[in-house]
């Protein structure tokens, strides 16, 4: 397997408290590899430590112990001047854009190039290229105050790409944007990831962002990674309660109101119907498994709700069905043998 672009190895971050009341542990023994050229999402609630974790990649935060390896450099141990070199290989975008109000779009994008000491002629050529890349040619000499949120984030992205980094860090880049604009910014990130082979590490509190663009995900809770892997695998088999709660409402479907009201944890009679959530993964997502359950086993299936969407570029389906109690175990076995996941949500009648 290829070297990971970023590797956290036993990373712990403690903040000493005033008055010696013991340290606050922001991150505890984090081990995580961020694959080269992929989009990886770190999801967690506010205060979970995701922001601290992200800032370790470009040395804005340093680990108390453990190592953060980025493009082969040990960031935590780098000297100030070595760190400045590493930072030019790592772009960063922010929730509140952090654009200079006193500079135009073009001048904002030029800033990292000026800092890196690029000569003015090459700066203007590169800036023009970047502005075209993010689709802001008409706004070149506007000031940030004259731009919409989505346009500001495009400037932020162009600025982050200016020095040709290999890694892009995104700190809640879409959290201040409306759903349409979020969509556009995520599409742009996906495009540059594909076109430039750029490794993107993003933090978010929205599972929808992970679903839409991340091929890999790590779930962080109280300073610890509780679950990590390919988005697809984590979404289809969430093991940690935090992951499950993030997934609610993002994948699959909800039990319809009229059924939810009658749902019981145990069947009231042998004639009851079991309400089962079926998750379709991988190639099975497109197989007509329910039709086969009916035709081959003679089980009548009552479809209550369902949806198929794309996660990590693979189809991901979720159905809620009613199955006769008498045939429940047999049906579940049949479906699981064919690679589907089933979960009994409750019983009706």
């Amino acid at each position, binding site marked *: 397997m290829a070297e990971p672009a970023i590797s956290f190895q036993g990373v712990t971050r403690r903040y000493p408290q005033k008055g010696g009341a013991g340290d606050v542990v922001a991150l505890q023994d984090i081990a995580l590899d961020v694959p080269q050229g992929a989009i990886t999402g770190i999801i967690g609630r506010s205060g979970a430590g995701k922001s601290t974790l992200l800032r370790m990649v470009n040395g804005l935060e340093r680990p108390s112990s453990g190592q953060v390896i980025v493009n082969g450099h040990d960031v935590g141990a780098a000297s100030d001047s070595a760190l*400045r070199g590493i930072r*030019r290989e790592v772009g960063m975008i*922010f929730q509140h854009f*952090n654009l*200079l*109000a006193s500079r135009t779009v073009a001048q904002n994008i030029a800033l990292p190039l000026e800092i890196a000491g690029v000569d003015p002629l090459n700066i203007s050529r590169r800036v023009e290229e970047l502005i075209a890349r993010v689709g802001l040619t008409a706004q070149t000499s506007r*000031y940030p105050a*004259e731009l919409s949120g989505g346009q500001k984030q495009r400037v932020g992205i162009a600025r982050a790409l200016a*020095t040709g980094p290999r890694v892009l860090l995104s700190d809640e880049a879409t959290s201040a944007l409306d759903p349409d604009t979020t969509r556009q910014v995520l599409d742009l990130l996906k495009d540059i990831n594909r076109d430039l082979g750029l490794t993107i590490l993003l933090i978010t509190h929205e599972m929808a962002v992970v679903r839409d663009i991340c091929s890999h995900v790590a779930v962080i809770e109280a300073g610890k990674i509780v679950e990590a892997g390919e988005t697809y695998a984590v979404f289809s088999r969430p093991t940690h309660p935090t992951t499950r709660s993030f997934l609610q409402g993002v994948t699959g479907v909800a039990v319809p109101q009229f059924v939810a009201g009658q749902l019981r944890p145990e069947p009231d009679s042998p004639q009851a119907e079991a309400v089962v959530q079926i998750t379709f993964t991988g190639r099975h997502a497109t197989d007509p498994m329910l039709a086969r359950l009916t035709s081959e086993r003679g089980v009548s299936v009552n479809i209550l709700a369902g949806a198929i969407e794309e996660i990590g570029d693979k189809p991901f389906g979720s159905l809620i069905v009613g199955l006769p109690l008498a045939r429940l175990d047999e049906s579940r076995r049949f479906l699981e043998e064919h690679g589907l996941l089933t979960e009994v949500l409750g019983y009706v009648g």
Partner: protein
Amino acid sequence: MSANLIPILWESLLQTLYMVAMSTALGTLIGAPLGIFLATSRRGELLSAPVLNSVLGLIVNAARSTPFIILVVAIIPLTRLIAGTSIGTTAAIVPLTIAAAPFIARLIETAIREVDAGLIEAARAMGATPGQIVRKVLIPEAMPGIILGLTLAVVSLIGYSAMVGAVGGEGLGDLGIRYGYQRFMPEVMLAVVIILIVLVQLVQSLGEWIAARFDKRAPRNRGR
């Protein structure tokens, strides 16, 4: 008011402008670096030097809490050392500068502290050195605030310059006291006051105009 007072008023105005301009320029020369340092050197900040920050902060506060008229006489030996004399318009520039520098330092510190910390973080993430952050981010972003602060300093110095008559500083304030008060010529006093009002108005309007030119934070009204 007799016509022969006009040249005296004119000469006094020029003396005032000379003192204010010189002390603003010299005060900024000392106050600006001091203000930038004060704004960036607390613990954990860009140029983190908490001890020096506290010491300089203390000196600035001490200078600012000394009443100006006391400062003028207290530093007469220093004035004589620097200007060669302790009397006259040029000599008056010394106490004016010493009063202006810490004031300007605090005004610039305040303006720089107004700059969003997110911008400093963004610049650090780009690999900027502390010097680059000061030059390319903090000063340009704080410029509207710095200009308004300097305007306030100039207006204050116009007021202070009226007090340096005590050490033979001349200028409009001195003229007002000597002719208007000591020689019972209220029309001179009135003329001085009116000139000072106009002068302060001009300085304030000019400062606000320049600051607005630098301020890109609000969308401009286009097509007017």
